[in-house]
């Protein structure tokens, strides 16, 4: 039999009966002897069937009511933003008039300072979102804003001195993070940033009329309230923005921008290179958008800085380092866990995630108290050390477990029906699975939240799980734990 590439187009036409009778016969004749084309034809038909199934699949039923509420909230925020924008425009106009008067007086005395003032007044910048001057002398009457450090992971520095949670951020401050540290700052209501590990950022201008951050290296994620004039300088590039959420990463001359919400303009010199509308990514020539080597920088995701909405000061949450925890995630923000992490968190229920070195996560549910909280070992669910050596992808585990999910449930329901033990309905379970080098299950242990699992349930689930076959893990045996949420219907 001859080995050849199947003529996909001809086979598709054949399958669709779109060929002439002679053409159909020719393909049929060829198919009789060609296994490659038989396989291709079967793949075409398999795909056709699955595509039809996908088209006819029932859609998920979503809670549109919840969405409407969220959209209404968004509408209110937008309205607030535009009011703020008008207020700031008026303020800037007043500033411009005052500046004009000051400028005239200064010219009158032939001040050398006056000759350096830019001709453009701040209101022009507000109207067109033009580049903001870093030199704050253009609006000398305007008081700088004061920001606050809302989260600190590890050792971070402001102006070469170690900084702490709650420290005030001033215009002119230079913030630095180490390879395993990070910080979040709030500069105004609804506006702030998250500085990634191994980064250096100067707060060049923090004024009501606009904020300018200068990224010297590393990455910064930003959230900007609509109406706020905000700009991140990164080397030769400027990212100019109003009301948006985006991140800028800089490695030498290469700059990457990920835009999660809103619109930003990328500028260089006097030219606007590109205007991005979310969601979008941009990279300077030579930089890649899809992946990044910059530590702690994820070009596809924009971190949301912590504590932007706190009108009243939120209590502090302290996360000491724990063995086996390499990262924390709180309210969508990620922190390295090598050193002490302190952050602002809202009162009430709070969920944080603790990641181990292999990317496995445990959820920790906390009740934040007004006086603050320090996480203790007792609050942290166990992250097994185990003897894990090999690698088994989460997808591979999911595929096997999902395919056997019904059997696990049958175990539970059968035991519940026969034993009628009410404690069965109240327990949460965890199943430890040890997978051998060939993908066979070597050991299984079922534990219940309250202690030992019901013997009949344990036996049934153990028996079932011992029969699972996983793909052979690479590098050695693997152990993992499955939380089982079993409940009676």
């Amino acid at each position: 039999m001859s080995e050849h590439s199947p003529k996909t187009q001809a086979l598709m036409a054949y399958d669709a009966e779109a060929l002439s009778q002679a053409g159909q016969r020719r393909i049929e004749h060829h198919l009789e002897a060609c296994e490659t084309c038989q396989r291709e034809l079967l793949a075409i038909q398999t795909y056709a069937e699955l595509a039809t199934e996908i088209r006819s699949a029932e859609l998920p039923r979503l809670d549109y009511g919840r969405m409407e509420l969220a959209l209404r909230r968004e509408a209110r925020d937008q309205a607030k933003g535009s009011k703020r924008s008008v207020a700031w425009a008026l303020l800037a106009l007043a500033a411009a008039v005052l500046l004009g008067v000051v400028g005239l007086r200064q010219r009158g005395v032939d001040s050398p300072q006056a000759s350096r003032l830019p001709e453009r007044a701040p209101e022009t910048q507000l109207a067109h979102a033009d580049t903001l001057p870093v030199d704050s002398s253009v609006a000398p009457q305007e008081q700088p804003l004061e920001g606050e450090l809302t989260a600190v992971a590890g050792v971070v520095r402001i102006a070469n001195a170690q900084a702490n949670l709650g420290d005030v951020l001033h215009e002119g401050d230079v913030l630095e993070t180490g390879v395993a540290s990070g910080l979040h700052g709030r500069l105004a209501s609804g506006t702030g940033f998250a500085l990634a590990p191994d980064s250096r950022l100067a707060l060049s201008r923090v004024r009501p009329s606009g904020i300018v951050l200068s990224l010297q290296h590393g990455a910064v994620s930003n959230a900007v309230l609509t109406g706020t004039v905000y700009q991140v300088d990164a080397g030769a590039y400027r990212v100019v923005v109003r009301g948006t959420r985006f991140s800028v990463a800089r490695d030498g001359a290469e700059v990457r921008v990920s835009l999660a919400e809103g619109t930003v303009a990328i500028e260089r010199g006097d030219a606007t290179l590109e205007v991005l509308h979310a969601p979008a990514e941009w990279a300077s020539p030579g930089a890649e958008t899809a992946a990044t080597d910059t530590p702690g920088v994820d070009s596809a995701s924009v971190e949301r800085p912590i504590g932007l909405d706190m009108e009243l000061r939120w209590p502090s949450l302290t996360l000491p380092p724990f063995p086996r925890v390499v990262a924390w995630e709180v309210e969508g923000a990620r922190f390295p866990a090598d050193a002490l992490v302190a952050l602002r968190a809202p009162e009430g229920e709070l969920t944080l995630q603790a990641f181990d070195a292999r990317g496995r996560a445990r959820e920790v549910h906390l009740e934040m108290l007004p006086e603050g909280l320090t996480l203790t070992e007792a609050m942290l669910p166990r992250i097994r050390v185990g003897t894990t050596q090999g690698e088994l992808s989460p997808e591979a585990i999911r595929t096997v477990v999902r395919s056997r999910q019904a059997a696990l449930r049958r175990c539970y329901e059968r035991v519940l029906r026969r034993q009628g033990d009410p404690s069965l309905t109240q327990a949460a379970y965890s199943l430890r699975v040890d997978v051998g080098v060939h993908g066979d299950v070597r050991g299984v242990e079922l534990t219940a939240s309250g202690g030992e699992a019901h013997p009949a349930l344990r036996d049934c689930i153990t028996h079932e799980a011992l029969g699972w076959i996983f793909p052979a893990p690479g590098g050695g045996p693997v152990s993992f734990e499955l939380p089982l949420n079993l409940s009676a219907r």
Partner: protein
Amino acid sequence: MTGLDPVVERAREGDEAAFNQLFRSHRDTVTRIVYRVLGPTPEAEVEDVVQDVFIHVFRSLKNFRGDARFTTWLYRLTTNVARMHIRKKRSRPRFADVSIPEATDDDDTTNRPDAATDRGRRIEALYALVQELSEKKREVLVLHDFEGMAAKEIAEIVEAPVLTVRTRLFYARKELYAKIAQDPSLAPAVEHLLESLPGQSATETKAKAKSAAPPPLRQRHVTGSAR
């Protein structure tokens, strides 16, 4: 601005009621596109993405100039948001722990016939292959083959010539066929296909396919050329 739908026009000007009307008119289609692009996904995740789409609509509507139809603009935004969601998901650390969700009425695998479970598994396996395609090919394939859009409409959404859309679709399918032929997780789907043929066991049909005419399964809307 002329020629703009009055509801869109009002929503652009910040009329909350008009925006709500837009949301209600288009939420089902947006949900369907998001679901088709993401593949089998928990409802809560689909919900987040759909909400994200409408928040983007809300924030960007003032930039909509009416150069394209509102629906084209909306679907473009929808596919962009879904694509970014997939990228973001890929870039995040993955959970090695697998949480088996509590069963709901919709997820009753015990009482459902095995066929439905098998179908779900086959679709998951297919989506795993689809996600391996490049973004451009995947987008065109999903919109055409799973969502049923015409090539011309897709061309407007992805801002590419119709011919480019057809080319991407052809190469996307070709790549998928090769993957399907080699993917052992889809072997049951092939078996299922063979068994579904009237009066044939898989073995018999295979033999027949080898020696005579191919199975008479036809899906012209999928295997035919792009409209």
